[in-house]
């Protein structure tokens, strides 16, 4: 999956550069997050602003990252959700699991 990552102190900001998150690319995304956890990074912000479509596999990859971050006493926060992507979290009640922010800045301040 095409990502742009940036480190701000101990936080990793991951900008997803795909229009679509589905079973075709979310497996790789999970592995890309695992590589970060292996390096000891466990505070992630995922910027979804480029994402127009996410399916249950994409959500599953985010849940996987969330659980791994939490298990390492870190956290995974989301920002930049387009309205239709936001409604996927509501449909699956995952908006009650994730911390969701409007902007990268707000997500960053919350750490």
């Amino acid at each position: 999956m095409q990502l742009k990552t940036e480190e701000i102190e101990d936080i990793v900001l991951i900008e997803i550069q795909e229009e679509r998150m589905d079973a075709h690319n979310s497996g790789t995304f999970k592995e890309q997050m695992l590589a970060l956890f292996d390096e000891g990074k466990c505070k992630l912000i995922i910027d979804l602003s480029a994402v127009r479509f996410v399916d249950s596999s994409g959500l599953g990859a985010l849940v996987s990252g969330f659980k791994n971050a939490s298990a390492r006493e870190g956290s995974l926060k989301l920002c930049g959700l387009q309205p239709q992507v936001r409604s996927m979290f509501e449909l699956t009640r995952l908006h009650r699991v994730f911390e969701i922010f409007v902007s990268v800045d707000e997500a960053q301040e919350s750490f």
Partner: protein
Amino acid sequence: MPETVEVDITIPNQTRYLGLIGRIGEDLVHSLGRYTGDREVLAYHLNLVLTEAITNAICHANENDPNKRIQIKISATEETLSIKVFDEGEGFDLAKRQLGDMCETDECGRGIHIIRRLMDQVNYRRSDKRNVLEMVKKLY
């Protein structure tokens, strides 16, 4: 004669075609004659249920076997959207997939629930030597 658009697509058993079928579903919604609801939302939902159903057919039924194929039929009238996804697997018991079985932080198991939430009728049955997941959405 009802004004029907019928699309019948056969793809290799590979997730790289998910985006194509999803986009065709969205295109179809945008060409519907009368539809008074939010077209962008309906387009997303059709894209989504197609994606979920085809992913299951590729990964669970056809077990990523590159020699198998997936067939998708979509039929659109002004009243109904009807979708059929055929797989060549062992089949499964749709009735046994209940929302109660899952916990919020499970990584998988959301596909069928999403399809059930967004479609008005969902059933899965044997059809010749294949299985078919049939989904219907009323548009009025």
